[in-house]
């Protein structure tokens, strides 16, 4: 007992700290509609530096990717080594320009052609420091018209996840590979529905589709899309089935899903602001009579 009295101040600090932390964690851990003012102010201080650093990373990563691929070719074509060196600088430059060109073209075309959705582009500026979670931050927020639970897709219109919580000029995205994420999915070929759960910490399997009926005719290689049950709009492609096994206690089937979107290299994403054309609208009787009367 004596050492407790000797260290009484330390003990008080520890107890107060533990209580404070548990309250804060419990308060901020659940899904939140908006961030608190304090968090937003501190985040705003970090944002500009992060923006610059993210741009720098992209540049370094692009050049590094170029170097790696060049190295591989170098190995394969030992005979062409000397000629390769001459082309190194040129091809590297070309590659960067090409990548940028492709991306821009993809964005422009999608914006023009996609009649089903009203899209908005956002950039990924920050990733979760934890190895257990996969969430990331994008550079658009409430001021840009982003709301909670908006669907996030990759540039190739593959499902990425949804907006988890929103700040004034930034938002956190919960990707479908995060352990907390649940997405209603449907197997395109057999029309069976299930729930897709993320396993972010696993290397090989990124998502598991649960609660498929026991009699499900799922096979390897089939495509999975969103079912439209829940907050995600119908018909967005998610990934393909990589293997099938019996679920818990053998009453259901589980399918391992390999998402099409590459979560490690996401740089830009689309947000679905509005679903323009999903179910054809049937006008109400009043509207019908009004339009007839007008004519």
């Amino acid at each position: 007992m004596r050492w407790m009295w000797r260290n009484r101040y330390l003990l008080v600090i520890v107890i107060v700290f533990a209580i404070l932390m548990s309250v804060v964690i419990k308060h901020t851990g659940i899904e939140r509609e908006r961030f608190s003012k304090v968090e937003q102010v501190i985040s705003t201080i970090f944002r500009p530096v992060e923006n610059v650093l993210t741009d720098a990373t992209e540049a370094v990563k692009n050049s590094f990717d170029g170097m790696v691929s060049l190295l591989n070719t170098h190995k394969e074509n030992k005979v062409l080594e000397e000629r390769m060196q001459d082309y190194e600088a040129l091809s590297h430059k070309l590659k960067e320009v090409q990548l940028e060109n492709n991306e821009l073209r993809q964005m422009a075309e999608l914006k023009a052609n996609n009649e089903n959705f009203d899209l908005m582009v956002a950039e990924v500026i920050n990733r979760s420091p934890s190895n257990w979670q996969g969430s990331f931050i994008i550079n658009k927020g409430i001021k840009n018209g982003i709301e909670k639970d908006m669907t996030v897709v990759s540039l190739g219109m593959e499902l990425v996840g949804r907006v988890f919580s929103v700040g004034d000029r930034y938002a956190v995205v919960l990707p479908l590979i995060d352990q907390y994420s649940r997405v209603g999915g449907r197997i395109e070929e057999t029309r069976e529905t299930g729930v897709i759960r993320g396993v972010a910490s696993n290397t090989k399997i990124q998502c598991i589709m649960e609660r498929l009926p026991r009699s499900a005719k799922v096979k390897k290689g089939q495509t999975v899309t969103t079912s439209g049950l829940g907050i995600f709009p119908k018909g967005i492609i998610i990934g393909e089935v990589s293997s099938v096994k019996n679920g818990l206690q053998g009453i259901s089937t589980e399918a391992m899903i390999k998402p099409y979107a590459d979560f490690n290299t996401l740089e830009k994403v689309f947000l679905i602001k509005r679903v323009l054309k999903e179910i054809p609208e049937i006008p109400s009787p009043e509207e019908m009579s009004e339009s007839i009367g007008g004519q």
Partner: protein
Amino acid sequence: MKYWRLMILVMGCIILQSTLVPFLKIINVHPDIVLMVIIAISVLLGFKMGTLFGFIAGLLLDISTGGTVGIYASVYTLIGFSSGLMEKKVFKDNFLLPLVFCFVGTFIKGFLEYILLRYSGISVSFISSFGVVVFPEAIYNAIMAPFVYYLIYRLPIFKYLRMYPYGII
């Protein structure tokens, strides 16, 4: 006020941790440089500064990445405190020191993070993830730790340590 260089270093590490470091992924795991810096600071300066820096770094990391506030704050506070307790019992010149501390520290961090994530309402699977996430991360951190430790050890405020490695008699 004489710790302003350290504070800037810690802030820089927090920003790096959430922007550049996730790209250093090897087998789905990236290192934790904030952990290395906290361990280095608390081993060199003792448990009081270790706890303080751990708490500030954790809180800023939590807030700037938009996660659950308090998880990293608690984890780093505890790691800063516990590794700072060893300050008087170790030789600070030995660069195996950060290696061992970071290896063990990553396991403590993983375990605490798991408990706190569960507590905050995010369920993560334990058995399947611990071997796949925490163990590789511990090795990764242990390999990188001596370099980070060396950088911090070179800072001007630790000049007296380099001059009198066995303490001022």
